[in-house]
């Protein structure tokens, strides 16, 4: 099952339940890829016209698909059989926010830009898709212009023009019908001065901030600088939609395709079948090099059953995540199975929000006491152990530009069980030598209660008394910890949270959780209500930065946020995948949340 709250600017952890089933729901699209130690030298350029470049291995090894392409092959034909434990939120490109759904969108949706078909870190780069080149902007990055390639067609044979792209964006403004996706970015940047109600309420109206001087040119006039605009144009949210085929709320039942596959049938909660789109032209597409004739997605609600099917090679992949922790030992113990498993980071950081609005945590030293006393090792064990995640040294996950593996401002001891001496020192510093009492927020399902029990026991070692403030997962992020007022009212001093960026840039990761101007009630993602002028300033700089400056600013931003001691990073999430040995051209793509790049996968038996 899926579901959960998805937020502006990124994705909080959807459910703290069912151990690693969480990562099935992980809706991040953050930068991911290999852990630094596994990074291989890049080889080849991107955008080749045949199979994607990148280091490739002819045999398969454990983690082979994390930073390389496994079993490269030109063989075509066959059906890719995917399974998922829960259905997508929507196939309407404007209304989907699940990460695995975004990966599936690559089958039948093309946008102006797209994520490079490369493994690992290279997959977080955005490259032109429908556009002939990346967007050209003015100096302060408020006006962006794109030119379309020629010969582009929808699956119904009609040409794709700049007006179709504009219409796709216009739909986002009909928020009472089109909702559920990350439309807030587009609404925030493209709402004209007089407002715009969308094409349904205002059929003769026009979104004046998007101009289409001719069929192959489109210009966006933003209300503020946005250096990452090419990334927004890579999301399915900005995909073209033909107005004549727009069935509004029903569009997600069978969207028109601009990609190499199109819908044959969709039975919600049961099965989706895609077949090849005869109107898609390979010569216009440098991202997709499909090999199979058909792709099926079957919903298997029983995850243990699904793992069994996958491990017996009767299906090809879990589309929405990895295998259960209980299934991992058998894979790790069997070398023939382990060679087809991958254990990458997902781009999600699991952390504890420490609220500076709740006494005595208004005093930074008291917050730091929690940072030092925290037992990250225990927490990690509960979340699936080594295969479930890596201990996090800082908030920015690996390979979001700015990540510094050597930056560990609050070390929690040599074995990550906590530095109690330092913690007690901080307690004395903040005037609470015997500890203090705070409530802890967590979701009341799955492993939430276990995590609470662990934190409670571990912080008690220095006299910090933690009481429980659980809530249902359906409103945890919206009205429980997403309401600054509620945090104060319930004395919530610490809260379990997880976060992944919507697109892999420092701004994409930090804006909603760290900018003072992002604080709202309810639906807040800046849980500790951080409002640090230095942090706000760097975020503002990032909206105007050139790509060459991004990494450096990202590093500064990470350090500036950590200096406030409001976000205690605990672990960088990992997923444990298993792939059917018959699959070819298979690699994990960082741009789509480190899921396999389904559109490029083939089979070695042609079946």
């Amino acid at each position: 099952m899926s579901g959960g709250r998805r937020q502006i600017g990124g994705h909080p952890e959807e459910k703290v339940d069912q151990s690693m089933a969480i990562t099935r729901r992980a809706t991040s699209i953050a930068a991911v890829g290999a852990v630094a130690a596994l990074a291989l030298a890049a080889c080849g350029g991107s955008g080749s016209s045949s199979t994607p470049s990148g280091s490739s291995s002819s045999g398969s090894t454990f983690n082979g698909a994390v930073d390389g392409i496994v079993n490269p092959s030109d063989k075509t034909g066959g059906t890719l059989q995917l399974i998922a434990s829960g259905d997508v939120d929507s196939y309407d490109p404007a209304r989907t926010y699940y990460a695995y759904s975004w990966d599936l969108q690559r089958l039948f949706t093309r946008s102006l830009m797209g994520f490079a078909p490369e493994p690992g870190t290279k997959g977080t780069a955005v490259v032109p898709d429908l556009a002939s080149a990346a967007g050209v902007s003015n100096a302060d990055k408020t006006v962006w212009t794109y030119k379309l390639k020629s010969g582009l067609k929808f699956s119904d044979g009609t040409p794709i023009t700049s007006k179709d792209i504009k219409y796709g964006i216009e739909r986002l403004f009909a928020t009472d019908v089109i909702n559920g996706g990350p439309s807030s970015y587009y609404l925030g940047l493209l709402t004209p001065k007089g407002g715009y109600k969308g094409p349904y309420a205002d059929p003769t109206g026009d979104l004046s901030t998007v101009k289409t001087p001719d069929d192959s040119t489109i210009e966006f006039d933003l209300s503020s600088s946005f250096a990452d605009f090419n990334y927004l144009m890579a999301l399915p949210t900005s995909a073209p939609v033909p107005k004549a085929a727009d069935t509004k709320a029903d569009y997600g039942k069978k969207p028109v395709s601009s990609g190499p596959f199109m819908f044959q049938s969709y039975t919600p909660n049961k099965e989706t079948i895609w077949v090849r789109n005869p109107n898609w032209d390979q010569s216009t597409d440098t991202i997709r090099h499909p090999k199979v004739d058909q792709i099926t997605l079957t919903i298997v609600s029983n995850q243990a059953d699904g793992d069994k099917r996958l491990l017996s090679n009767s299906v090809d992949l879990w589309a929405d995540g990895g295998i259960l922790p209980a299934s991992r030992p058998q894979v790790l113990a069997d070398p023939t199975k382990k060679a087809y498993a991958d254990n990458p980071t997902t781009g999600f950081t699991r952390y504890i929000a420490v609220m500076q609005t709740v006494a005595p945590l208004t005093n930074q030293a008291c917050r730091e006491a929690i940072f030092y006393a925290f037992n990250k090792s225990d927490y990690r064990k509960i979340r699936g152990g080594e295969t479930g995640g890596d201990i996090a040294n800082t908030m920015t996950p690996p390979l979001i530009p700015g990540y510094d593996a050597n930056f560990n401002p609050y070390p929690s001891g040599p074995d990550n069980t906590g530095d109690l001496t330092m913690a007690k020192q901080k307690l004395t510093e903040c005037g609470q030598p015997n500890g203090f009492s705070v409530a802890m927020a967590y979701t009341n399902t799955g492993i939430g209660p276990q995590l609470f029990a662990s934190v409670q026991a571990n912080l008690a070692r220095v006299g910090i008394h933690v009481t429980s403030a659980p809530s249902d997962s359906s409103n945890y992020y919206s009205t429980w910890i997403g309401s600054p007022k509620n945090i104060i009212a319930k004395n919530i001093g610490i809260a379990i949270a997880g976060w992944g960026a919507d697109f892999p840039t420092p701004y994409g990761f930090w804006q909603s959780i760290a900018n003072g101007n992002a604080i709202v009630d309810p639906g807040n993602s800046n849980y500790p209500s951080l409002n640090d002028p230095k942090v706000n300033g760097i975020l503002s700089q990032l909206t105007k930065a050139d790509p060459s400056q991004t990494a450096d600013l990202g590093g500064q931003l990470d350090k500036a946020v950590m200096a406030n001691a409001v976000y205690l990073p605990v672990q960088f999430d990992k997923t444990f995948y298993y792939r059917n040995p018959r699959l070819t051209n298979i690699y994990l793509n960082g741009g789509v949340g480190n899921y396999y790049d389904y559109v490029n996968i083939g089979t070695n038996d042609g079946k």
Partner: protein
Amino acid sequence: MFRYIVRRLIGAVFVVFIISLVTFSLQYLAQHVGGGSPAYLFLGKAPSAAQVKAFEKQWGLDQPFTTQYVNYIKGIFTGRTLGDGTPGSDRACPAPCLGYSFQYQAPVTDLIKTAFPVTFSLAIGAAVIWLISGVSIGVLSALKKGSLADRSAMVVALAGVSLPVYFTGLILLYVFVYSLHWLPPPQWVEFTTSPIEWAQNLILPWITIAFGTAALYARFTRANMLETMNEDYIRTATAKGLPRRTVIGKHALRSALTPVITIFGLDLGLLLGGAILTEKTFSLPGLGYLTINAIARSDLQVVLGITIVAAVFIVIANLVVDVVYGLVDPRVRFS
């Protein structure tokens, strides 16, 4: 008899009405007190307070309780159009309108219509299996009371009653699908698409449900048979020289089985409301699966709709059972 049925029907309607009122109140409370507004389902990302207000106004969720409830009940009989008339935002909900799911963006009735055939197939097949096997084993056990067969049957029955459905289901999957490969991994195939595949995919879920229920029926039938066999009239019939087959088949069975009819009706009625555990274990998209998903995402309109539908099934089952009982057992007088 006719008057009896009419009276019972009126009573049934009243019971369903009360259930709808209670369930609707709970859903209303969940929305207003528990922070479970459908706005969060529909608007997806954490919406602002203003957006939530606008949403609730558009869908009439800010109206007083009585207005909302009356509209809901009216909708069941006449259908409704939800929304405030803004172009593009109207949602038609034809009769019987059991509410609108903001998660699936569809009338609840449509969701139930799609899911019901799955649950119905599951229930009917399992019911046939458990009734036949449970009653036969119970009768045979009673007739051969104290024998090895009887004792073994009752031990197996004890296991069936004690083992949880998800355990039985997983064991069956492991044995028949993954070890022996006698059956394919289960998925829902419509009867109209292929009756053979339909049955093939349902055989394991049928057995899973039937195992536990048949066990109950076996024990229950056995007890009833034993009691009936001790009745005076049975002794009289035997003394009169009637063949054993006639004594058992014509006289004893009839009165021993009437209580079985009662519980069968109730069990079937309950099952038609959705077999949550079995459906989830075997990936069958029926009412139970729909319910559990709706609960997990707080899509309370779906839960409300299914609760009312399930209540109707149980109430009707109750009524049918009572009427049949009266027909079968002449000692029962309708009063």
